[in-house]
């Protein structure tokens, strides 16, 4: 399978000069068609930034993002190029991602019309798309505020679908929703991938959700990816101590009364990341060398892990 989106050596900065924050620091990642890639990590680790950079909403300070072989140009004062229309994004907040003053039909119709479709084509597409995301056709005549959060998120998805995306980056699309709405949207996204073979980057801070739908998961910590691999393997046998902690911290709703394990400390300020391995101040298995040596990704058990301690001795250069 060839990669549809290829991220190589990507760095993204916020601010300028002294106040510069490197929110994403040297990330390599690929997404293939028909694949769901989960992206997890604690708040502030750079997931959104990475997602935004992938669709061209943040310019790369270093490295590059390519989509279907061509570079993703940052969104500027000009119209986005037509080829990039097939690379779309879904946002976290279903309230602010739909224009409150426009009807749902018009919003979705835009997705068609902006691709050069006629009015009639757009109208037809709208009904079809609404049906696809499980909303009645008369929803087209309503305003976004007349819908619940889950429904709005589905409308937002329908809107991106109007552009026939090949790749969808969904930035915490379900975090703001109730449990059952979460399940609805997550299921919808899963179905779409299966039906249309699009590639989905699913960003979430909740590993248990990601595990339900993602084929592959990438765990981020402070602007870096610390572990990437097939979801099930990462979940059942995490290699990186951070992944381990993340999974152990998830409370299980089994009525067992077990308290989850906490990970002491906070995510450090990305403006002044720790030396060496960025996780070392919070790492339960840190050794002295972790303080100084910045580990690169190493292939362990079919996945890339950036950990000195867990890396087999021979893999170290």
């Amino acid at each position, binding site marked *: 399978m060839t990669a549809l989106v290829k991220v190589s050596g990507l760095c993204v900065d916020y601010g300028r000069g002294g106040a510069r924050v490197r929110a994403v620091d040297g990330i390599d990642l690929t997404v293939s068609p028909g694949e769901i890639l989960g992206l997890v990590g*604690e*708040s502030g680790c750079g997931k959104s930034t990475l997602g935004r950079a992938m669709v061209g909403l943040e310019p790369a300070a270093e490295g590059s993002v390519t989509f279907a072989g061509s570079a993703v140009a940052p969104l500027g004062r000009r119209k986005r190029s037509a080829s990039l229309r097939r690379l779309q994004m879904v946002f976290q907040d279903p309230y602010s991602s739909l224009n409150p003053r426009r009807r749902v039909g018009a919003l979705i119709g835009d997705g068609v019309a902006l691709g050069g479709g006629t009015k009639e084509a757009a109208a037809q597409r709208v009904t079809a798309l609404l049906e696809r995301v499980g909303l009645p056709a008369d929803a087209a005549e309503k305003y976004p505020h007349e819908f*619940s959060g*889950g*429904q709005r998120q589905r409308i937002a998805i329908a809107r991106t679908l109007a552009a026939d995306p090949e790749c969808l980056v969904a930035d915490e699309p379900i975090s703001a929703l*109730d*449990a*059952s*709405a*979460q*399940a*609805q949207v*997550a*299921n919808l996204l*899963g179905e779409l991938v299966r039906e249309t073979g699009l590639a989905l980057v699913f960003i979430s*801070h*909740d*590993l*248990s*959700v990601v*595990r*339900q739908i993602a084929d592959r998961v990438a765990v981020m910590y402070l602007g870096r990816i610390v572990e990437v691999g097939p*979801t*099930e393997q990462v979940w059942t046998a995490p290699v990186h101590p951070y992944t381990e*902690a*993340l999974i*152990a*911290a*998830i*409370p*299980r*709703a*089994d*009525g*067992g*009364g*077990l*308290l*989850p*394990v*906490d*990970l*002491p400390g*906070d*995510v450090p300020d990305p403006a002044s990341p720790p030396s060496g391995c960025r996780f070392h101040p919070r790492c339960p298995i840190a050794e002295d060398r972790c303080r100084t040596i910045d580990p690169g990704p190493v292939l362990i058990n079919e996945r890339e892990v950036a950990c000195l301690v867990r890396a087999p001795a021979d893999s170290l250069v």
Partner: protein
Amino acid sequence: MPLLSIEHLSVALSTARGSFKAVDDVSFSVDTGEILGIAGESGSGKTMTALTLLGLLPHGARTAGKAVFDGTDLLTMSPKKIRAVRGRQIAMVSQDPATSLHPILTVERQLTEHMRHHLGVSRSEARTRAVDLLATVRIPDPEQALTAYPGQFSGGMRQRIAIAVALACEPRLLLADEPTTALDVTVQAGILRLLQRLRTERGLAVVIITHDLGVMSALADRVCVMYGGRMAEVGPRSEILSAPRHPYTRGLLDALPHPEGGAAELRPIAGSPPSLGNVPTGCPFHPRCPHAEPGCSLDRPELVTVAPGHLLACPVDPLARPVLEKTR
């Protein structure tokens, strides 16, 4: 006698479109040292229930029923008396640590002002206590933290400080309204442990409100599930979470990704929760309920004891139905 017992509590809110019941006939009780969890989807009236206890309902709200705390009814208390209960007897921690601490007052002031008001302690004594409190909730370098402002702390730290603020006057009941929803799981685990420790060390009674059944499972002794302002089910944690009787509770659990359940498809509850004031008649859940029967839309289900300490409001449940018929 339980520390707090709520009987047939209803809360009506008035909005631009008229008034509606946000909480409808809710009853439960909490003992000293007990942790009661209240679960339910957004808008099911969880927060309103908690605010009623502190007399902090929004403008124009009206209440009915009883909320007896330590022998007195909180609902009929004079504003002055209820103020003496707030913070001193019953304290509250709310969902968003970013907004529940005052952004431009120092941590010290926020930690000590009610201590000095309620307990009448001196400034220096309050300060000493504040340092202890911060240490209790595991804030590094408490002395220095006192002079800082909330904005200088991370989310998890802020929530710890908020808990310290709530604990400052050694209340007997802590209302924790979604104390971890805004936090990362790694941080959440720490907060849950803190609450657990406080309960065991201080005998603190806790009402924890959350829609996260995982949190419920980790912490609560008993769980109360609310839907559309009403109680659906209440009972011991293990029963509710491992053998739920109400179709809504079951639906909630099915919709959750199961850590142990493998990569099975999530099963959402059909439809969406009722909106403001549009709670269906009869059993509020019937439009979404897979087991609904025609009668569900007519009669309002009563809470019926289906097992010791386990009450259920579902007319179609085989255990609940006969009892219901009997009471008629």
